[in-house]
């Protein structure tokens, strides 16, 4: 059964009723047990579990230590093009937004890569807007090839591709795929993606599976928190992660927990996700899938990021710039358009040093490309 079929069979109103039915006593029993069923995961995302965060945090911290130790792997995003054919209501790169768009030439990609690599970081995430005309698969493949000169692990966060295209990128040195579904609610999905190729919910939903089939080593998924009810979004993200883990036991599956951030537009999102809610989501993920990689981006501020480290986070972005060529390429300030505003502006060395102060090792390199 495909994940789309699993998703379609879920009764969303039934989930709301189930969330309301859990008691704090049932959360205690779940935490005392080693086994964790999907229904237990649902319980951990319920309002009742919201009153048991300290107890959940204790166990989540122990599990994180056991499987990941006191380490945080660092990576940084590199935006190579902001041309986009979509109209995502929550994104500055929306094709209706009028600004001077930019795409890095390959020599500029090389220069940005060299600059980032000089910090010691060996993991990079390459991002583009969705424009097959301006940033076609061949361009992304060339970028991956160039970045491989500077990095041990190159991941992409671009529009969904076919399995053949993913396989071609793997043979060109691609290591990881990040692809957020944005929302697992198909109705909300359609309403916030009014035009463009991204309207195809299913093609996007199945993309992580196509990537894993194409032998991409690590695959990260997630929902953009704030677009729809976070309890259901987190639950469905967790089910999606488990579905991928079950089918691809040799692929490292991870999740991200991005919250909607201010951007160049007026969309606010339907559902606010508080810091407390975010903590509950991270804890529930860790308790449900103890070996799951959990990424936290610079969308969150430094103080919160540091507090979230012991609770289950295993990867963090650092030194993020969310505009195209924001590091080495000479772009006039007025021409820079951020995809969204970051909340942690510290440099990579600053973040690394702070992680050490907190008693954790910032891991700059955790892969060896051997092909």
């Amino acid at each position, binding site marked *: 059964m495909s994940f789309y079929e699993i998703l379609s069979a879920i009764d969303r109103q039934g989930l709301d009723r189930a969330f309301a039915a859990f008691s704090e006593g049932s959360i205690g029993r779940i935490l005392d047990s080693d086994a964790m069923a999907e229904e237990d995961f649902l319980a951990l995302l319920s309002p009742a579990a919201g009153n048991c965060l300290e107890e959940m945090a204790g166990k989540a911290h122990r599990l994180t230590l056991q499987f990941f*130790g*006191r*380490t945080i792997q660092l990576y940084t995003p590199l935006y190579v093009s902001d041309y986009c054919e979509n109209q995502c209501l929550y994104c500055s790169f929306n094709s209706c937004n009028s600004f001077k768009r930019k795409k890095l030439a390959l020599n500029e990609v090389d220069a940005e890569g060299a600059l980032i690599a000089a910090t*010691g970081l*060996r993991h990079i995430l390459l991002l583009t807007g969705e424009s097959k005309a301006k940033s076609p698969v061949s361009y992304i493949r060339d970028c991956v090839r160039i970045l491989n000169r500077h990095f041990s692990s190159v991941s992409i966060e671009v529009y969904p591709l076919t399995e053949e295209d993913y396989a071609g990128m793997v043979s060109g040195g691609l290591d990881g795929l990040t692809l957020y579904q944005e929302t697992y609610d198909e109705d909300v999905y359609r309403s916030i993606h009014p035009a463009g190729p991204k309207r195809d919910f299913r093609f996007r939903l199945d993309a992580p599976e196509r990537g894993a089939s194409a032998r991409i*080593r690590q695959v990260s998924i997630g929902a953009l928190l704030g677009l729809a009810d976070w309890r259901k979004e987190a639950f469905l993200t967790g089910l999606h992660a488990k579905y991928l*883990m079950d089918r691809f036991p040799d692929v490292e599956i991870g999740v991200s927990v991005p919250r909607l951030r201010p951007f160049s537009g007026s969309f606010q999102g339907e559902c606010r996700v508080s810091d407390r809610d975010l903590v509950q989501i991270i804890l529930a993920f860790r308790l449900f899938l103890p070996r799951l990689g959990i990424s936290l981006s610079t969308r969150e501020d430094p103080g919160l990021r540091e507090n979230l480290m012991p609770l289950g986070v295993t990867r963090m972005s650092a030194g993020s710039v969310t505009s195209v060529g924001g590091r080495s390429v000479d772009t006039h300030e007025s021409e820079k358009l951020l995809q969204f505003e970051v909340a942690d502006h510290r440099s990579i060395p600053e973040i690394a040093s702070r992680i050490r102060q907190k008693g954790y090792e910032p891991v700059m*390199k955790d892969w*060896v490309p051997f092909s």
Partner: protein
Amino acid sequence: MEDFLEIGGKKLSSRLFVGTGKFPGNAVMRDVLLASGTEVTTVALRRVDPDSAAENILDYVPHACTVMINTSGARNAEEAVRIARLARAGGTGSWIKIEVIADTRYLLPDNLETLKAVEALVKEGFTVFPYMSPDLSVARRMADCGAAAVMPLGSPIGSNRGVKTKELVRILIDEIKIPVIVDAGLGKPSDACECMEMGCEAVLVNTAIAIAENPVETARAFAMAVRAGRLAYASGISGSVETARASSPLTGFLRDNG
């Protein structure tokens, strides 16, 4: 009493091997390696960065330690072989711990692929230490291929559950001619001691030390436990079973009745 472990052409006085993953920092890791007295340490090639001006994990390994590169991240034999070759080309020596894991949920080794990698890497002149599930026939084949030791898991990596595979490890100790080194899952010094009492030639510990509140003291405790267990084994502790039998509580009446 002099007691050395002769393995891979080296003569070691410490039978505690220590892994370098999950530590809260490279400096602590170095202190641990020194305090434990270990002479063999495993390092994942994926963490090694000779090009980094700031930090390279290998710079923190004491000179007295032999580095055993592990192939963490390999999902099949071919990938393990490639990682081993890269390690040797990078100048990290030829001791390789083969770790082939195609299961990210339990991190259990793939014995068949591991065996293939043993075969290939021994032929290429590596000193090979395969991490494996304790299976007698596979261990025999690894020994026949020329592995320097077999490294059966005590319980899944990082689980700290102790020697759950005890009966199977005991069979390997009894039957396999090369050293048996229990790797993975040892959560307490007493677990390490138990392995050594059984007759393991050495143990490898990582998580239990790396995530302890005080990694350095925990490393010392493991080192003591390994020595105690080895001493007990070498002094014939299992002979106490014979003594118990001599009293023959069940058949003593035969003697009494003449």
